[in-house]
C-alpha cells in the first residue's frame, strides 16, 4: 500500500474536538461526492488539515457514500492523512538522485535534531518529518523543503544548521536543546 505521506496546504493542526462539522455540509453541497470523491476529500483535507473520523463520518452521512468506501480512498492515496501534522513540515526528497546523493543521511540528521522518526510528528505538534518520492529538482540533490522554503545541495552538516536555525527562529531552543541534541 502506498505509505509515503504527502499532505496538502493547511493552516495548522486542529484538535479533534474543535472540528466545525458544519463546514462539511458546504463541501458536500459544492462537491460531487459520488462522481468525484477524491476532489471532495482533497478540499476537506485542505479545510481541516487532516481527515479525522468525525469528518469522514459526516461526509458519509451527508453524501450517502459509505464511510468504508471513503476510508478505502483515504488509505490508498498517500496524500490523505487521518492524523494531524505539525505546524511546520520538513519534507526530504528521496528520489533516485537524492538517494544516490545521500538523502538517508539528511533524514537521519533531521530526525536526530528534532527527536522524531521519519513520517512522525513531534509531541508539541511543531514539526512533521516526511519523505517524498521525487520533487523533480534532481540536479540540486539532495533537496528538502521546510514549509515553503527549499534547500538544495545539502550535506548532513548544513541540514543540521538549517534545522537548528529554524528551531531558534521559532523560539524553541529550550525545548529542543540549544546545541541541537534533540534526541536526548
Amino acid at each position, binding site marked *: 500500500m502506498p505509505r509515503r505521506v504527502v499532505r496538502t496546504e493547511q493552516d495548522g493542526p486542529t484538535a479533534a474536538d474543535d472540528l466545525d462539522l458544519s463546514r462539511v455540509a458546504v463541501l458536500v453541497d459544492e462537491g460531487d461526492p*459520488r462522481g468525484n470523491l477524491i476532489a471532495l476529500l482533497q478540499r476537506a483535507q485542505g479545510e481541516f488539515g487532516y481527515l479525522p473520523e468525525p469528518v469522514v463520518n459526516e461526509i458519509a452521512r451527508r453524501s450517502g457514500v459509505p464511510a468504508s468506501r471513503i476510508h478505502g*480512498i483515504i488509505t490508498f492515496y498517500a496524500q490523505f492523512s487521518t492524523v494531524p501534522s505539525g505546524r511546520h513540515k520538513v519534507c526530504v526528497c*528521496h528520489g533516485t*538522485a537524492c538517494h544516490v546523493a545521500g538523502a538517508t543521511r539528511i533524514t537521519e540528521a533531521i530526525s536526530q535534531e528534532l527527536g522524531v522518526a521519519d513520517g512522525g510528528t513531534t509531541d508539541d505538534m511543531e514539526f512533521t518529518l516526511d519523505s517524498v*518520492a*521525487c520533487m523533480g529538482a534532481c540536479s540540486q540533490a539532495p533537496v528538502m523543503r521546510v514549509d515553503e522554503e527549499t534547500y538544495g545541495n545539502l550535506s548532513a552538516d548544513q541540514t543540521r544548521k538549517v534545522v537548528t536555525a529554524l528551531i531558534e527562529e521559532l523560539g524553541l531552543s529550550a525545548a529542543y536543546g540549544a546545541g541541537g541534541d534533540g534526541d536526548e
Partner: protein
Amino acid sequence: MSEPVAPAAEPRDDGVRVAVGDAGSKRRVSVCAGTACVFAGSMKVRDAFVAEVEAAGLQNEVEVKIIGCHGLCSQGPLAVVSDGETYYPRLKVKDVSRVVTEHLAGGEPVEKLLYVDPSTGERVACAHDIPFYRAQTRIALRDVGVIDPESLDEYLARGGYEAARKALTTMEPEAIVEEILASGLRGRGGAGFPTGAKWKFARSSPGDLKYVICNGDEGDPGAFMDASIMDGDPHAVLEGMLIASFAIGAPEGFIYVRAEYPLAVRRLRLAIAAAEEHGYLGDDIFGSGWRFHLKIKEGAGAFVCGEETALIASIEGQRGMPRKRPPFPAVSGLWGKPTNINNVETYSNVPWIIANGAAAYAAVGSDSCKGTKAFSLAGKVVNGGLAEVPMGSTLRHVIFDVGGGIKDGREFKAVQLGGPSGGCVPASLLDTPVDYESLAATGAIMGSGGMVVADDSTCMVDLARYFLQFTQNESCGKCVPCRLGTKRMLEILERITAGHGRQGDIETLEALAVNIKKTSLCGLGQTAPNPVLTTIKYFREEYEAHIGEHRCPALSCDALIAYVVDAEACTGCMLCAKRCPTAAARGEKKQAHAIEQGLCIRCDVCRTACKFDAVKIVSGPEAIAAAVEAQAEL
C-alpha cells in the same frame, strides 16, 4: 534541428486575438523558474533583478520575466539576457546588481559571471554555444525554457495553436491520424506503442462520447521531463490534446497531474483559462464547429496511477487499482467510454508533427524509432538537467556529450534508466542506441526518460534495494505476485545490505523475479524486478561481496563500512571533532584524531569536513579491524 521551425503567426480574420506581444521590443532578462532552479533560489534572483532594474531606471527598456526549465539544472539559478542570449549560471542575489549595471546599463557582459566550459576552461557567453545545449535536438521541449509559461501571447508568438488551426480547419480527422501514424511517433510514457495506431483504435471504437486523457502522473523518482513540459510549456500539451480530440472524435478531456507537482497544476490551470478565453478551447474552435472541453484532475499520491487503467479508476474517484486488459481503454475506458491516453511528451510532439509534416519528424531518429526523446539527466553527472536527443543517439552521447561526463573526475559505473521499472546499464554497453528495442535488450527499458548516473561510490545492491522498497511501497495490493513477491525480494535485499546475506540469496531473487514478471497483473509488478535483475546481471560480484565477504565494494552500505582516521594524514586540526554530531571523532589539538566505532553513526560529516583527506571509509571485517587498530589511541 536545434531550432525547430514553427509557422509564423499570421494576421487572422476570425476574431481570435492576434498575439505578437511587445515582448520583442524590450530587452529581456529571463530567469529560469524550473523546479531545480527554484530550489536553488531563482525566485530571489528574479526579485533582485526586478528591484535592480527599477533602481537603474531601466524598467521601460528591460523586462524581467520567468521561463520554464532552461535545461542545465545543475547550473541553477540561471538567467539569460536577450542581448546575444547571454547566459549567467549559478547567480547569487549579490551578483545581480553587476549584471544590471555592467551589462544591461553598460552594454558589456559580466565576464566573471559567464559560464565556464569545464572541458576547455574557457568562458562561453551565448547559451547556444554551451556544449550541453549544442548537443541537443529539441522538438518536444521546443519552447520549454524559451517562453514565459504563463503567457499565451508568447506561445502564440512562437506559432502556437497554428498546428491545431491547420488540423481543425484544413484536415480530415482520418488524415490527422494517418499523419501521426506516418510520423512514426511512439508513446513516450515508456511502452512505445505507436501513437497513430492508438488513435486509430479509439477513433474506430463506436460511441458518441469519447475521452482523451493526458497522463501527467510522472511518478518515476528521478524523472522530471513531463513536469518540465507541463510547467514550462503548458499550451503545447493543450494543443496536442486538442488535435487528438478532433482526430479521435473525443470532445472531452482530462489532464491527470501528479500530486507532487503543484506548479504544473497552477500553470496548466492558467493555460486552460487563457485558451478558453481566446477560443482555443470550448465550443466551435476556429469556427470549425469542433468543441473540446478540458479539465485537470489532481492525483492524490499513488505511483500505480501512472498505469492507464489505474489512472482511469482514479479519475472516476476510486482507489487507483489497475484492471485486466482487454478491454483496452480505446474500447472501454473512462466511465466505460472509448478513451485515448497518451503521455505529456507524446502530446507535446503532436503540434510539431502537424505543423512540419510527418516526413520532417520521421527524418529525425533511427529506423525503428522516429523523432526525439527527452531525458532528465541526474545523479553523478556534470551537467544535470533536461536533455532531448534524436532517437538512436547512444547512451555515451547523452551522458558524455550532453551530460559532460562524470562529476569530480570519478569513474562511470552505470546508468539507471526507466526508474523503478527499468534497470542499470553498465559501462560496457554505453554505445547502446537510445531506442525502445535496444534498451529493452539490455534488460533496462526506455521508460519515461529518467536517467540517473551512478559512479563508483554508488552501491548497485543498495540501488536495487532502493527501487524495490519504492515499488513495494507503491504496490496497490490487488495481485499476489506484486504484493507479496516484491515484499520477499525486498526482505532479501535488506538482509544483504545489512550484512546478513546468505548463500543462495541471489538465486532466490532471480527465481522470484521471473515469476513476478510473468504473473503480475499490471506493468508495475511486471517490471518491478528489473532493477534487481539488471544489477545481478551486470554487477553480480557486488552481490557476492556483500553476501560472501560482508563487504560493500562501493563503500556505501552503512552496516558494512567503518569510518577511520588515517593517523599519518591527520594534522590534528580538530575540524572533524568539532563537526561530529555524536562526539565519535576525537583527539587532542595537533595530535592524530580517531573515531570511536561504537559512537559513529556514519553520517559522513567528518569525511566531508576533513581538508586533508584523512578520514577514510573501509569495508569488510578484516579491513575494518586492521584500520581501527591502526588509528591513534583514543
